[in-house]
């Protein structure tokens, strides 16, 4: 799927498949339907200890259909794109719809909300790299990590992934849309050792275009530096202290925030931010913004999972919650209008502050810098937060020593209110962009 003509031809074939699915649904008696088809191909390879470890050629197809009989619905999906699979899937979905209950909120998003223009968001940059060149790049990356320091004693390898694919969505309002996307990444994980203790860490780079990736050597070196910095980690005693979430882990706090303002969590009354619209959730200086049509953005899309046009908006401005994250179903359940977020948020960012990470450490003085978290200890109903952590103990703004085998705990509502500063050291690699977060106080459990 490397050249553009082939992609255009493929696009028209998949669009035809979507129309076939919708036509079949109508034929089998559905009053409305929506369908998605995707096709993706790629290469994943790992180089470990200077030699190729795995080469995987991936080719994934998928087809999904949801049918509505009035207000009852049924869904089916398959990895098979044959005409027989189209008929069978529609039949399975229609059969299910006989047994689901009429639901006044069910149905397609309103026809007038469908995206009318589908601008080119510059998301398709296939990487014409052959296996040998990919191995070479992986080798450079891992060599840079292993060669950095004699305490890098082992490796999980460097992995290169390159994927390009197409996703087409259509529904019985007559909407059909889709475009090709590509995604490439290079990652490296190595192990450092001092006395008996081993520490592992990693680094990665990801982008729509190969040109957007960090240099292979830089990725390897960062992985090695991170693994080295953890050597000699110790446990600290139980205490309360300010905490900095380094930018790459601070993304998870924003993810918890978006999870709490998701329509499904709200109408199920299972969110700690229930009924918080237009209320103060963060301090005044906080603005959280979604930019779904960012050119070359990893989360970019011109329409959401229901064909609704996406648009840029503030979720939080001046610390006040300005918008939920809704698809049409949860919007109807809440008596609101969809925000074009069926399928989630796209390119979310919190405005960066002025302090870089080191200045943020100075601002904190004495406290904990968290660089990794473990486990799932986030209760989205209550906001109670308790997670495994490792990082560094900081005194007078200077890193003292690495710490591990501790937990950090609090409640997300308070953690958000106690956000003292956001760093200028933005993590830009994924769908969520943020600097490091300085939190006034949390409970640290240790020895």
């Amino acid at each position, binding site marked *: 799927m490397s050249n553009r003509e082939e992609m255009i031809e493929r696009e028209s074939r998949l669009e035809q498949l979507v129309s076939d699915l919708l036509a079949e649904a109508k034929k089998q008696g559905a009053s409305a339907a929506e369908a998605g088809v995707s096709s993706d191909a790629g290469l994943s390879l790992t180089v470990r200890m200077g030699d190729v470890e795995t080469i995987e050629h991936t080719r994934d197809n998928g087809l999904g259909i949801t049918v509505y009989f009035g207000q009852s619905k049924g869904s089916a999906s398959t990895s098979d794109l044959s005409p027989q699979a189209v008929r069978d899937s529609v039949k399975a979905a229609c059969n299910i719809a006989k047994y689901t209950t009429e639901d006044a909120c069910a149905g397609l998003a309103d026809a007038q909300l469908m995206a009318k223009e589908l601008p080119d968001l510059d998301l398709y940059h296939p990487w014409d790299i052959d296996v040998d060149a990919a191995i070479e790049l992986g080798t450079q990356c891992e060599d840079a990590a292993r060669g950095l320091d004699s305490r890098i004693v082992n490796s999980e390898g460097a992995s290169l992934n390159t994927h390009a694919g197409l996703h087409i969505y259509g529904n019985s309002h007559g909407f059909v849309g889709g475009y090709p996307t590509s995604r490439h990444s290079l990652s490296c994980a190595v192990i450092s050792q001092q006395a008996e203790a081993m520490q592992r860490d990693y680094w990665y780079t990801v982008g729509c275009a190969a040109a957007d990736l960090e240099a292979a050597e830089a990725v390897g070196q960062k992985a090695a530096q991170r693994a080295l910095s953890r050597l000699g980690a110790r446990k600290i005693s139980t205490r309360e202290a300010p905490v900095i979430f380094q930018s790459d882990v601070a993304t998870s706090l924003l993810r918890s925030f978006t999870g709490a303002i998701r329509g499904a969590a709200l109408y199920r009354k299972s969110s700690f931010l229930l009924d918080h619209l237009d209320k103060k959730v963060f301090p005044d200086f906080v603005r959280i913004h979604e930019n779904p049509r960012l050119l070359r953005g990893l989360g970019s899309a011109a329409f959401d999972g229901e064909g609704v046009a996406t648009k840029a908006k503030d979720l939080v401005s001046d610390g006040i919650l300005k918008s939920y994250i809704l698809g049409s179903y949860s919007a109807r359940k809440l008596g609101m209008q969809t925000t074009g977020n069926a399928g989630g948020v796209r390119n979310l960012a919190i405005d960066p502050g002025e302090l870089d990470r080191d200045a943020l450490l100075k601002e904190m003085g004495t406290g904990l810098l968290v660089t990794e978290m*473990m486990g799932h*200890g986030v209760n989205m109903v209550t906001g109670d937060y308790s997670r495994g952590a490792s990082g560094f103990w900081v005194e007078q703004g200077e890193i003292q020593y690495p710490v591990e*085998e501790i937990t950090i705990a609090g409640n997300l509502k308070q953690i958000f209110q106690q956000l003292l500063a956001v760093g200028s050291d933005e993590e830009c690699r994924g769908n969520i962009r943020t600097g490091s977060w300085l939190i006034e106080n949390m409970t640290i459990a240790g020895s």
Partner: protein
Amino acid sequence: MPSEAVCSLPSQIEIMPDFIDIARGVLLEPAGLHESDLERVLDQLLSYRIDMADIYFQAGRIESWVLEDGIIKEGAYNIEQGAGVRAISGEKTGFAYTDELQFPALLEAAKTARAIACAGEQKRIRVSKTLPTERLYQPINPLSSLTEQEKVDLLRQVDAEARRQDPRVKQVIVSLVAAHDVVLVANTDGTLNGDVRPLVRLSVSVIAEQGERREQGSGGGGARDAFSYLVDQGRALGFARDAVNQALINLEAEAAPAGTMTVVLGPGWPGVLLHEAIGHGLEGDFNRKGTSAFSGRIGEKVAASGCTVVDNGTLPGRRGSLNMDDEGMPTQNTVLIEDGILKGYMQDRMNARLMGGVSTGNGRRESYAHLPMPRMTNTYMLPGKYDPQEIISSVEKGLYAVNFGGGQVDITSGKFVFSASEAYLIEKGKVTRPVKGATLIGDGPAVLTQVSMVGSDLQLDQGVGVCGKEGQSLPVGVGQPTLRIDELTVGGTNA
């Protein structure tokens, strides 16, 4: 053949077709594929300098139903089928797959996969051997073991049971999932083996509300069986009551303590401790590469005397059990720790061969589109001698944790976490007040040396566990008796 008549027969009267015949019928015959075609594909692979190669065929069907707000809100049906071809040369693996079960597509995948090695001499393969496997579950299709109407009625009964428990129950979500997986593996060592794997699961999640406070609770269970497993003995209704009880208890919960203290873990699902602290670190791949905190420690004491931990894929009907693993090897009962001493690793074929051992039947993969690797089945600790009540009574001040959500482990440093979803304080030998959920953190190779009492009450979990590794999710089981751990760090807010 009337399946209901067969199912009622004692299992030693085997009049159902072999798994492998069913697998042939589902995977090969519709595509017009014969064993000679598989041999031709394997020949192609072996014409290169390859140590081992295999073809994995899979046809999977999953059906799911969701009840929410008292109505049957969603239903979905998924069909997934294809074949994966893997070629191994030394420590290298080449892999390709196709969703077309046709000879040309298989041949192309084989040519792609074998490129990992150099061309060599032509060899001929004959697939004929089948390895003996136990019958741990019947080769049934659970999707058709109830009618659609019966399935949605079951969901409604579970919803009603949850709501009947207490007026504070405000939200009930019930999901019902059945999977039917038919697999066939042909290997260059000449083996051909098949399996038919049923799996059912019911999950209940509730929200209870009291004044301004809302709390959740969950319950659920499943097995490699027909839906009747969930209906029998009122199991599904029991899961609803479990979920409500947990939510109501959490409505009363106070802030959890923070710091290192004595922890008593209840029986059953808290065995996720073993899965995280011990299990992953003993998977063969990490040990072959020397990246595990347990690497090179066979024969060392890693747990208190009296602690014996096994990974057992041969328990009839259990969620983590398999007649054969995804490399066609029979599953087995593998002793990981015996009376405190580290005994062995869990192996797939490749890692076993590279380490000079044999597969322990732990080679598993999420689907044909994923590579196999060493994975757990049902991992648990054998019972000890203490009465559970005696264990609680022995604790002056500590935490009693009886239910958990997920966990995670850093294989290399050995640090692991698991998060309690239902826990109580122990004060002066008595279970007193409920506390909020909290994450517990410890060191894998050290935590079991802190076990001072092992209960006599071994329980396995209810059958809902999912394990993720390198992006692949698999059903697993865990279990343990009540355990006293003298020191473990509890991540509450009450310092």
